[in-house]
């Protein structure tokens, strides 16, 4: 019995326990409201159902979240991801729309390459502002957040570019092995990022830079390069997400594509247990957070919660998830345990400052 208890303690103490609980609770609530919510049926050779939708729609958020996780781990933040989604989607759609044969694979590949290339440039811009010039990340990326929307509209000339390209469309709504292609892309990028950070020492070095930049510098880490790198990674992730967002509706809308995705991504990262102060990060947590947020959005639609209350609903869910996840909150409501680890986190969590 005591081992069962210990195992329970270990499970419930895991940082992802509460997000999982919230996710399950949302799914259950949906199923109660509409028993068919969880059913997944076969239609035209692919799976069809709300769960599949959630996965497909969460794919861009997962992508942006992955990049955002790395940025946040270095103690930064990237507000410009939404604009970058719009830009990469816009340039890709623009290129395709100019092709004589929009279904030609070659043209689509060039379009994707253009989008990624532009993302690289924009990521490098952000990275340079933060790591070379030393501007605070939130402000450095605010510049592109504002100007980026303008750039996207400049590319589309304010119009919505509609395209009719099957290969491009498949990025957003195509299917592979009965599942949406977008899921595979997101999973692929997630695996890649995980491998690059955890199979190499990059992850630890990022955490070290985020935990204490000066100490990392003195340990011989090229902090500036690492910081630069994470903004580039974030931009590329956002770029790919931009393809999905635009492919989903076969059109590029410079104004609406990826709107507010930065807030959702930051939320996903935090729900996933990565501290905004930098340091330790969890990619799986971010993915879970993204799924939770998408499920929340879908729930609002599926339960037909009125637009007036949907924001209130979102506020309540966000705060509950963050509350139950917070160690301090749990400590305060778990007094029955004999040894409650209270203050130490309170004392040591504050970022250490570097004297001038």
């Amino acid at each position, binding site marked *: 019995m005591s081992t069962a208890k210990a195992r329970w303690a270990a499970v419930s103490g895991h940082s992802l326990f509460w997000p999982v609980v919230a996710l399950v609770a949302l799914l259950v609530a949906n199923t109660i409201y*509409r028993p068919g919510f969880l059913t997944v049926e076969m239609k035209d050779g692919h799976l069809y159902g709300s769960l599949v939708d959630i996965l497909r729609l969460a794919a861009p958020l997962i992508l942006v979240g992955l990049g955002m996780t790395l940025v946040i781990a270095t103690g930064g933040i990237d507000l410009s991801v939404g604009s970058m989604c719009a830009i990469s989607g816009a340039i890709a759609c623009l290129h395709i729309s100019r092709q004589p044969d929009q279904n030609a694979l070659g043209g689509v590949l060039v379009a994707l390459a253009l989008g990624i290339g532009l993302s690289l440039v924009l990521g490098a811009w952000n990275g340079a502002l933060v790591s070379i010039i030393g501007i605070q990340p939130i402000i450095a990326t605010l510049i592109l957040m504002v100007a980026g929307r303008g750039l996207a509209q400049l590319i589309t000339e304010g119009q919505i570019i509609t395209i009719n390209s099957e290969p491009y469309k498949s990025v957003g709504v195509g299917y592979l092995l009965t599942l949406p292609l977008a899921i595979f892309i997101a999973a692929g990028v997630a695996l890649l990022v995980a491998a690059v950070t955890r199979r190499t020492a990059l992850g630890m070095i990022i955490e070290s830079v985020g935990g204490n930049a000066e100490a990392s510098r003195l340990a011989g880490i090229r902090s500036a390069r690492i910081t630069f790198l994470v903004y580039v990674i974030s931009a590329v992730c956002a770029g790919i997400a931009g393809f999905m967002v635009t492919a989903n*509706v076969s059109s590029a809308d410079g104004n609406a594509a990826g709107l507010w995705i930065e807030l959702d991504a930051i939320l996903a990262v935090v729900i996933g247990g990565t501290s905004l102060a930098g340091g330790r990060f969890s990619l799986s947590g971010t993915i879970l957070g993204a799924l939770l947020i998408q499920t929340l959005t879908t729930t609002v639609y599926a339960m037909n919660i009125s637009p007036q209350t949907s924001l209130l609903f979102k506020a309540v869910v966000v705060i509950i998830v963050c509350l139950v996840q917070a160690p301090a909150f749990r400590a305060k409501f778990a007094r029955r345990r004999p040894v409650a680890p209270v203050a130490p986190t309170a004392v040591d969590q504050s970022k250490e400052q570097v004297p001038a």
Partner: protein
Amino acid sequence: ACGNSDTGDTPADDGKLTLGFSQVGAESGWRTANTNSIKESAKEANIELKFDDAQGKQENQITAIRNYIQQKVDVIAFSPVVESGWDTVLKEAKDAGIPVILTDRSVDSADKSLYKTFIGSDFVKEGKLSGEWLVNETKTATGPVNIVELQGTTGSAPANDRKKGFGEAIAANPNLKIIASQTGEFTRAGGKAVMEQFLKANPKIDVLFAHNDDMGLGALEAITAAGKVPGKDIKIITIDAVKDGMQALADGKFNFIAECSPLLGPQLMDLVKKVKAGETIPQRIETQETTFTPEQAKAALPTRKY
């Protein structure tokens, strides 16, 4: 860019009219068409245009109007971001003797002397036309007709008014029932995501009413993916009549569009000249608008400008 003037010469001196125009933003293709129309017709009418994009913020528009007053433009025109809250700045314009024209959206000032005229579409009417068409279509229906509605951005004037007009019209037939209504934020992606869930939650949907073409176009994809035939299994009514929407209508994927024309430019320039010349003009000028059925769309499509 317009700092071309070599000295501090007042551009108004050359007898050219100056119009200060404050646009809502560039949030949709419709809006861009509207902006282009105004810019082009200003050029054609030989009116100097001071253009400002408020990026969806009322504060920015008020700032712009105040600056136009300082610059002593001849006429001020703007598309208000929201309906209320203009009295103060309009009064300042009035005191400075600058006439104001509203375009596209109205303001709710009690004092109608604060602006010369309002030129634009009637959103309520658009909703009403859509509803009336549906009532007419379903005259013969015996059972209930299930309608889902894709609303525009919550709280925006077009969304409120179109909903209102549509609701009033369909009240004529008790069989017509809105079974679900959710905001799609006027975007294709929003329309699609919401429609996907509508389809899953409601086995029988007969009609979709979308507050603009874009949401309708997004919903199209969701309907197709669900294995239904848009235009047949589910009838689609939208508002705006932008090019993509008209194409869908011509292809029979949409069933009805109530037009909301962005091409206000020529009419506006005309008014500017009249106002400056001191002519009296009506308080309310409606843009020339129509409705489209698939056949009409096919006919109109080749000559459409936007």
